[in-house]
């Protein structure tokens, strides 16, 4: 794709009005130096966001740069532990790892200090580079900490340690109000989004969608129920199989549970074993282990599905829900976290609390195909108007103004 046409490409999907709005909002910010720092250039949600956010900001005339903090094995061990602890695991982190964390940040600060201190705005993503702010004492711009993690119930010992690094930022950004931790600066709320031009979400030719039936031994004439997610207990794959068996008593359906490989995740392997055991030799349950870059395959599977499930018992925002809805599929989702923002009961899908509830709703939709189609249309509209990258970018731009006038309710530019 030609970079200069990126905004036009989005305009074709979401309309010129939205893109004009972005251009006008960004006009006073032209020439501003903005730096984003995270810990990886590829893989993971943050890198995915930055890979569209940076070119879009540049196209709007903002001098946006993307820097990556690098470290040794111990640094990543430490930050992986942070991640688990912030999501509630009681993880004790050895002092040697914490030392490696701080030392790595010091080394990276040496390399980036001048650029960061000169920037008008610095966005630090997640805990990995959080100490950089304290290590840039002559900073002249505003510093914002962007937390992408569900921090609703952190392991307090670890949060207390990290809080010390983020408390001095000018503002922080959280995906949901439920995730935000009290800090003495404005806590902005920006929901995640999906990129409609990415491999995972772009339109596909019908042939490519249909090919998944042959590739995975699925019957195109039998309704397909799909859950795309890691093999993780919180995603409740066993509950999905339980629900499938209830449905199967009445209607012929096939189930796909598609997730990434679990080789680096001991618990994931264990869950996968349990899932395989529960599936037994049922030929209509398909457990697909896909590589982490199988975006187009997931895209095709979601499009080939009749209904998508996300029966999580605990969930962050649930971007797989957004992705399925973008493909015009009603979603039956667990009544938790960000799923509640997206699945509007009886409109874009159903919120459920049990496998029985999921089975009931699937049967209802299979019986009422008009309703299924109507919900799919509403689901797509909801994503179009609220959860695409253009809305996400608008909020980042708005936040820049808001942070410059932090206590003012109405900012006239």
């Amino acid at each position, binding site marked *: 794709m030609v970079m200069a046409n990126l905004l036009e490409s989005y305009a074709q999907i979401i309309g010129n009005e939205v893109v004009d709005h972005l251009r006008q909002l960004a006009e006073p910010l032209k020439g501003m130096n903005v730096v984003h720092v995270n810990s990886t250039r590829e893989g993971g949600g943050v890198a995915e966001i930055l890979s569209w956010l940076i070119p879009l900001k540049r196209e709007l005339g903002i001098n946006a740069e993307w820097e990556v903090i690098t470290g040794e094995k111990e640094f990543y061990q430490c930050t992986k532990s942070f991640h688990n602890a912030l999501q509630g695991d009681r993880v004790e982190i050895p002092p040697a790892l914490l030392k490696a964390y701080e030392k790595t940040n010091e080394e990276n600060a040496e390399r980036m200090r001048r650029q960061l201190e000169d920037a008008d705005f610095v966005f630090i993503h997640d805990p990995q580079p959080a100490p950089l702010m304290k290590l840039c004492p002559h900073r002249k711009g505003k510093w914002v900490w962007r937390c992408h993690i569900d921090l609703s119930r952190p392991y307090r010992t670890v949060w207390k340690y990290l809080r010390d690094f983020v408390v001095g930022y000018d503002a922080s950004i959280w995906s949901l*109000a439920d995730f935000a931790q009290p800090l003495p600066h404005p806590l902005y709320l920006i929901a995640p989004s999906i990129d409609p031009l990415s491999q995972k979400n772009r339109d596909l030719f019908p042939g490519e969608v249909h090919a998944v039936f042959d590739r995975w031994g699925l019957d195109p004439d039998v309704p397909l129920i799909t859950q795309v997610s890691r093999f993780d207990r919180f995603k409740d794959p066993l509950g999905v199989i339980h629900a499938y068996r209830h449905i199967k008593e009445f209607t012929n359906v096939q189930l796909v549970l598609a997730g990434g490989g679990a080789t680096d995740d001991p618990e994931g392997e264990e869950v996968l074993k349990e899932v395989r055991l529960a599936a037994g030799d049922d030929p209509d349950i398909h457990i697909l282990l896909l590589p982490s870059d199988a975006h187009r395959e997931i895209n095709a599977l979601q499009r080939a599905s009749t209904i998508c499930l996300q029966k999580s018992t605990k969930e962050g925002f649930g971007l797989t829900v957004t992705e399925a809805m973008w493909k015009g599929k009603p979603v039956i989702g667990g009544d938790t976290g960000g799923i509640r923002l997206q699945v509007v009961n009886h409109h874009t899908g159903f919120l459920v609390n049990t496998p029985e509830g999921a089975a009931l709703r699937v049967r209802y939709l299979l019986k009422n195909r008009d309703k299924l189609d109507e919900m799919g249309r509403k689901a797509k509209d909801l994503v179009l108007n609220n959860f695409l990258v253009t809305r996400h970018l608008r909020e980042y731009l708005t936040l820049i103004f808001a942070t410059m006038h932090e206590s003012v*309710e109405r900012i006239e*530019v």
Partner: protein
Amino acid sequence: MVDPFAVKDCALISIATGKEAQNLRELSDRLETIHSGCIYYHFWGGMLRPSFDEPEYQNDFAAWAWRSLHDSRLAERLAIIDPNYYKDIEELRRELMDVIEERLAESEFVPWARSGQRFKFIRSQIVVFDTGIRIEHPGELRDRIPKMSLGSIFYHFIDARRRTKDGKNDFVQWFLSFNRGIYDDLIKRINSIDPYFTTLSALRNELHAVFEMCPMEG
């Protein structure tokens, strides 16, 4: 000579206040002192923030009463509160608290929400920017309405009520400045539009229909 109508646009960003309520008593106590921007946000913010166009309940207090407290009686009473009816946020705050207090008085116990479903008070900041578009004649405004962004509709029709002296919207304010009485019918029709139980795009259509009905210059 009347000043041209300056078309502005706006964008909203939400801010968590960290204040929350676990039960109805806490909600009432918090409401007494909470920043007025929170009350504004929980009544009007749904129009500009990511949300569903056909919510069961139009304001967040009613939605919480229904979804998290499972108190449909309270939800219905809160849902019917139309913020337009009150002269300012303080009066709206009073009404909100009265409805909640009444419900607490008639309940045998205080309704509680599950721990993950606390009411979170949120406020917002609005960034207003000039689109550079200037409208000289009323007829031009009629033609511009369908092309206005939803942010512009929010700013001129809803946000204006907080900005202008008598809580008028910017369109009426502008037509009044012509001072010839020829737009009285239009002004009356615009004033009769209820901006609350609707969406911004429906509001834009409604406004355009009203403009189309009335003869105007330009």
